[in-house]
């Protein structure tokens, strides 16, 4: 029987990343959608940067940034916060790496809600927050779920970033994709196959769920 902890670790990482990004991504996506400035294009480009940047670059700079060898990393270390080679570290890395996958669909969703919906709500004396919670959010439900599922799936398949900053430590940073990598390196092809098939199964379920969701939307 193979060790299933890397699968659990991947699931835990993906869920935590998705939840954190949902909480933080919602207000950011809202702010971006309401913002009207020429600088908006620049900020939006930065948001989508993780899609284009090679994961190793992200991992490399995170490693340097949080290394105990420099002032910032040392300060964190003294405060008892360890980033490189810890679960917190790969959570932070996944957060940055998947950022656009959450923010972009939600922002697009908010932008597609007709302006007069919220204008009516405002004229009825509702606050911005209440309008967001009761008018906008219910209208972009599918975009939010899409963002959540995409983030989840993206994190499940994450490899390069975690390899750089995680260090492949069992139970801490050895997620499923790294376990597959190690087992191939150790020529344990059967274990690598098992992990791969489990990941494949999870991915298929996610994609089907996402497509079903979109099909429902079109109807």
């Amino acid at each position: 029987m193979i060790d299933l902890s890397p699968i659990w670790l991947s699931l835990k990482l993906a869920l935590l990343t998705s939840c954190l990004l949902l909480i933080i991504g919602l207000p950011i996506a809202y702010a971006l959608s309401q913002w009207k400035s020429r600088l908006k294009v620049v900020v939006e480009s930065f948001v989508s940067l993780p899609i284009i940047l090679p994961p190793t670059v992200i991992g490399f700079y995170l490693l340097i940034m949080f290394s105990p060898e420099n002032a910032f990393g040392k300060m964190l270390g003294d405060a008892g916060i360890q980033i490189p080679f810890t679960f917190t570290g790969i959570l932070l890395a996944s957060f940055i790496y998947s950022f656009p996958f959450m923010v972009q669909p939600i922002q697009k969703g908010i932008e597609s809600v007709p302006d007069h919906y919220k204008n009516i709500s405002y004229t009825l004396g509702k606050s911005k927050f209440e309008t967001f919670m009761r008018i906008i959010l219910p209208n972009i439900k599918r975009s939010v779920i899409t963002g959540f599922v995409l983030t989840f799936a993206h994190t499940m398949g994450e490899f390069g970033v975690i390899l750089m900053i995680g260090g492949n430590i069992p139970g801490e940073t050895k997620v499923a994709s790294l376990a597959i990598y190690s087992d191939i390196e150790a020529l344990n092809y059967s274990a690598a196959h098992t992990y791969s098939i489990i990941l494949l199964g999870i991915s298929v379920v996610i994609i089907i769920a996402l497509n079903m969701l979109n099909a429902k939307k079109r109807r």
Partner: protein
Amino acid sequence: MPRFILTFTLLVVLSAGGCSPSNEQDKLTVVVAASAQFAFRDIAEEFSKNNNVAVDIITGSSGKLTTQILYGAPYDILVSANMHYVEVLENSEKTHGEPFVYGCGVPIVWTMNAEFDLDSIASYFCLPDVERIAIADPKNAPYGEVAVKYLKSLGIYEKVKGKLVFGESISQVNEYVLNKTVDVGITAKSIVASPKLKGKGFYRELGEDFYIDQGMALINTKTTHDLKTKFKAFVQSEEGVNILESYGYKLSK
């Protein structure tokens, strides 16, 4: 929507509880160069049986593992494939005590092709039929460095340069050779001597000039030095030496 979020949060909490190994027993994290992985998995297994300690083995190229230690990775012991990296760690004051040589690594030419004339490697490498030769990345992997040195000593480096494929560590070289993605590779005897691969393919040693002193270093970490020293003693004990020799390492008397 709130129900959806609630369900997921619950799942997270459940899964978080389900997979953190919270038992704080003694544990050693040993990082091992790809070439030594099979030998040290055996050694770790024996050691953990004798001492009732869990030993985690993590493998990679010596260079990558060293970089990670320099950036604060919580690795207790580095088993490198040469002396260079353990010396780098010693110079950066990352080590506990002096690094030491645990054996001599034997580089080999390895192929799955029965037609390979191992007596005339130089001319074989230059044949047009031989399209791909795998070596480990000479920048990170000692066996890759030696492979380049070897090809240069044969005077064929410039000629075969275009055929070279670089593996991240010799693990990748082994995969390439084993799956016949390449015609031939330069790797470590400790790989083909492992029970898993014994008798697979054909190999020839590069010769004594290319032996690599294999270095090991105890790293300054939170784990008790006692445990690390015990592991070192086990590697140097008769039992440890026997395991190393069975994997093709040469040990100086």
